[in-house]
């Protein structure tokens, strides 16, 4: 794909409501206005489980037809379409230094007979390297994704209202679910935010599905929302979308044991940290130790000035692999470790690619049980441990 790729967003108006219902199934779609005043739906309502698929069948066929008519690539999310174009040598449609196979009117003309009801206001009036799709602003030239300014203000307001309403007051399940849903969505842009979500999902779970009770949010939830507030206050924040290429395999192995401590191997050099008895608190278990082992790797990578890379880490703990990859954990101790990890990963544009290795094949396994490696291979690196870890770990040599 040469430079000059552009996109144009279009929206199908009242998408689900364009999909007619089989008359024999209309008896399932009655609604009531005032008492004993009934209405029947002729089209799919948004809340029907089949609505996305049935309306989607129409839109998918439209997309496939459009691609066959030479308009591509096309991205679609429900009623939201993002049509792209790239420069072609003999294109009839000129924009700046590039020529393209179609412009907006031409691409619409190609499937005009299908009578798609395009929304007159939503979407882009022309092709551009900046396009809003699925509520996010995509910058094709600079390869970035960000929140449109209006959305940033909307989410900022949502967070700030939640804090002011419920910092000292009780809220209902729907209040938590709404803010949690919004923040989950935008954590695609705010990657470090993923570890500032579990306090919300834990709190939502504490309602046990009861829509009517009121509960006080936890202090950690308010702390997390204040983190979001701070992030959302910054204008023009974006996530850079860089293909990392082939993952970097530095021979990184991590392991931990409850009996001794943590072992790490990077490029044949080892590092071991013995834990003190104080490490064991409720909630801190082998899963936490294994996560901390992976956390320590980011400090090593940072010290080695590694950035803009996907880095392979071998671990024998599936729990750690899962929560580190997801960027969150319901266990608050593990979640704190993930938060610290991502606060280093994100600014350095590093992504971890975890590979599972059975314990017996993990070269870091003996280290974690206190069987240290040869002194000449000990990693010549000491870094300041985070305050939570500093009192409970000592470097072994």
């Amino acid at each position, binding site marked *: 794909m040469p430079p000059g790729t552009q996109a144009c967003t279009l929206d199908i108006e009242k998408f689900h409501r364009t999909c007619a219902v089989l008359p024999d199934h209309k008896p399932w779609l009655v609604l009531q*206005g005032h008492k004993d005043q009934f209405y029947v739906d002729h089209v799919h309502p948004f809340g029907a489980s089949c609505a996305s698929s049935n309306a*989607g069948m*129409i839109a*998918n066929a439209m997309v*496939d037809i459009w691609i066959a008519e030479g308009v*591509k690539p*096309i991205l679609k999310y429900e009623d939201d379409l993002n049509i792209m174009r790239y420069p072609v040598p003999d294109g009839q449609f000129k924009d700046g230094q590039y020529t393209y196979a179609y412009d907006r009117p031409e691409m619409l003309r190609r499937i005009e007979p299908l009578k798609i009801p395009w929304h007159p206001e939503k979407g882009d009036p022309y092709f551009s390297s900046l396009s809003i799709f699925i509520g996010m602003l995509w910058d094709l030239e600079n390869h970035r994704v960000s929140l449109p300014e209006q959305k940033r203000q909307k989410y900022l*307001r949502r967070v700030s209202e939640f804090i002011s309403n419920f910092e000292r007051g009780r809220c209902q399940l729907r209040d938590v679910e709404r803010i949690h849903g919004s923040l989950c969505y935008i954590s695609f842009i705010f990657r470090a935010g993923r570890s500032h979500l579990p306090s919300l999902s834990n709190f939502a779970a504490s309602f046990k599905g009861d829509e009517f009770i009121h509960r006080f949010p936890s202090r950690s939830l308010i702390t997390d929302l204040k983190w979001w507030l701070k992030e959302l206050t910054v204008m023009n924040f974006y996530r850079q*979308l860089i293909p990392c290429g*082939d993952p970097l395999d530095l021979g990184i192995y991590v392991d931990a044991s409850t009996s001794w401590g943590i072992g790490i191997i990077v490029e044949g050099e080892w590092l071991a940290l013995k834990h003190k008895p104080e490490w064991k608190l409720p909630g801190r278990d082998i899963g936490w130790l294994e996560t901390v082992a992976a956390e320590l790797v980011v400090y090593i990578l940072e010290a080695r000035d590694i950035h803009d890379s996907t880095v392979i880490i071998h671990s024998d703990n599936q729990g750690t692999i899962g929560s580190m990859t997801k960027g969150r954990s319901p266990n608050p101790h593990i979640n704190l470790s993930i938060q610290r990890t991502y606060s280093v990963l994100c600014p350095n544009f590093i992504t971890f690619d975890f590979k599972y290795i059975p314990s017996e094949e993990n070269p870091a396994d003996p280290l974690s049980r206190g069987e240290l490696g040869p002194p000449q291979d000990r990693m010549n690196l000491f870094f300041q441990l985070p305050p939570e870890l500093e009192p409970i770990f000592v470097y072994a040599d």
Partner: protein
Amino acid sequence: MPYPGLADPKTPEAFLLTSKPQSLLYPSFTSSIIPRPTFDANIHAYPDVFDRIVTPYDANAFAFFLDKHTLSLSYPLLVSNLRNGFPLGPMPNLLVTSVLPNHPTVMEHQSEVDEYLEKEVVARRISGPFSRETMEQILRGPFQSSPLIVAVQPQAPGEPDKIRICRHLSKSTRITPSVNSFIPKHYFPTRFDTASRVADIVSFLSSFQRNASFADPGHSNEGSFFIHQAGEGSFFALPWTKVLSLSTRLAEVLSLRMHSHMCQGSFLALLSSRIHRS
């Protein structure tokens, strides 16, 4: 934060793989449809309301284009559904009329609800209001009325809240199962281009800008090949059909495991690494 993307984003073909829509298999419910009685003027009313098909699409044009591009086999039900209406699912025989009361939020926003209903009537997307008896005459038997619910969505500062009036089709009572309980989700496939998928494509753009050539492996599902560069100078080809079946299987596994639209884009990363290794 960079998006890890596909294992080797240097090939332009990978871009087309990423941007290529996945094929879906739509099950047919024709044999499960329980027809309502034929219109009988003595006991039924307003046949035009029962029979009304409201859609902006031109079914004949869809038929023409699907045929023109040999896509009819991918959408065997579409043209008939556009003409006759889409089935909701394998719905059972509805034997008694059930009326589930509206959510309390409807009372709080009665004028907005009235306005909404009027607008829908004018647009011919709903018909009413009718009494319970008339509705049973129109629908030629019992019906199920699901609750309306009003959702308020706060907007950016200075903008009024958005009011959304929805049917709560998942609402059930002890004696009345919800409408949605009869609609198994797995019979209703969907494809969504999620943020992750867009990120793949947008991140690819940067690598293509470093690559001069752009070859289109063709956009027909049949007979064309996905050419993948497995390493320096070594290429192998997979038929598109195989790539698509692999992607469909992975998507199914992922959607079963995660039940989330947001994750579906990531199957492409998996797909690519799977192909890369094979």
